[in-house]
């Protein structure tokens, strides 16, 4: 199935924007670590994660373009603040604290792993094909971040305490990832998406396995707060957006 029903186009764009915007901004924030990560391999890794995430975002913006007939650069850079659909954990400042960067990365990477696993079962083939492809790369991200969680958690009492503090700080933001994009139910009703297990439970059991192996924990609870997925963003997001749009607003035709 390649053609998407007219009435499903808006919900599909909302869903794809939540995914692409998460990846674009997470990639953007991860690139902050280029040149200054604690060790060389971590520096290369975070730069690579950023490159992957921005490329994944770009692929999803192109897919959105096939639905709403817009240029992918325009979609990525040409919107106003309340038109972005990312959850604000992706732009929450890590204050250049490595434990914060690792905690944010764990929450987002495992969330994306499960999100892509679900989307790869979609019966809209352009979405399932791309999600399957990206899931293979996402698996490597999760594996990498699990290793860092173990390094810090099993390191010494200082690294463990700092990781635990970072996990606690970012936990309330992690659950914001689960705010549903508008119209998601319509995609389920039309069988574009299948609901075969509970997303949050799947995600929580994955992070619990990883955190357990490092002797740390995450306590969090789902809320119904409207946030990034509804276009309501915090100050950190606004700052990130201004930075991201700096070139585009000067020259909308600049190539990236």
């Amino acid at each position, binding site marked *: 199935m390649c053609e998407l029903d007219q009435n499903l186009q808006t919900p599909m764009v909302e869903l794809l924007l939540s995914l692409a915007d998460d990846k674009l901004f997470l990639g953007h924030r991860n690139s902050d670590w280029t040149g200054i990560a604690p060790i060389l391999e971590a520096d290369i890794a975070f730069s690579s994660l950023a*490159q992957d995430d921005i*490329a994944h975002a770009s692929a999803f913006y192109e897919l959105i373009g096939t639905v709403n007939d817009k240029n992918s650069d325009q979609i990525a850079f040409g919107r106003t603040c309340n038109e972005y659909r990312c959850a604000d954990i992706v732009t929450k400042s890590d204050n250049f604290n490595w434990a914060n960067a690792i905690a944010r990365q764990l929450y987002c990477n495992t969330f994306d792993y499960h999100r892509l696993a679900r989307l790869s079962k979609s019966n809209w083939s352009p979405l399932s094909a791309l999600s399957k492809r990206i899931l293979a790369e996402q*698996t490597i991200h999760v594996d990498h971040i699990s290793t860092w969680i173990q390094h810090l958690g099993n390191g010494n009492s200082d690294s463990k305490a700092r990781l635990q503090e970072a996990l606690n700080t970012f936990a309330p933001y992690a659950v914001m990832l689960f705010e549903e994009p508008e119209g998601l139910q319509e995609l389920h009703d039309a069988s574009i998406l299948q609901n075969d297990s509970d997303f949050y439970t799947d995600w929580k*059991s994955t992070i619990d396995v990883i955190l357990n192996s490092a002797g740390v924990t995450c306590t969090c609870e789902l809320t119904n707060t409207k946030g990034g997925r509804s276009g309501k963003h915090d100050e950190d997001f606004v700052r990130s957006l201004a930075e991201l749009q700096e070139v585009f607003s000067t020259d909308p035709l600049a190539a990236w």
Partner: protein
Amino acid sequence: MVNKQEILDVLSTIPDPEMPISITDLGLIEDIAIEGDAVHITVLPTFIGCFALPVIAENIETKLSELNKVESVEVSFTNDPPWSIDRITDAGRASLAEHGISVPEHGSICHSETSSPPVELRISAVLCPWCKSTETALTSPFGPTRCKSIHFCNTCRQPFERMKKV
């Protein structure tokens, strides 16, 4: 009219910009469509964020345009079907091994369809391409290019690269 074999012969002379292997041995070519003097090549990226893609497209266009019966060349990329290491030919594997780049075995792709947590992917023994020792360790899953990880051999004390299992 130009035929498929002539096109393939040219494509097999084009090296990957980042590795000692031709783009045909790497399994990048998904489709060759010929319509009169127009040729359309469909290419599979190894990794979505690979920087080499524009260079590969340009090399294909330049090389094929040199053929007499070809007027226009178009290159497009698709992720469906996805590229995987299973597409690398035996000749390609041999060429990579000669240059110290290890490639996972056919059919050993790690990513699973299930939603079980993808933890501890690194437990399987990786063979050193230099001395064939299995006493090796992963240095980093992120190497000089998107498709390779960095490893170290504790027997011959040499670093080496490995294609990622996708």
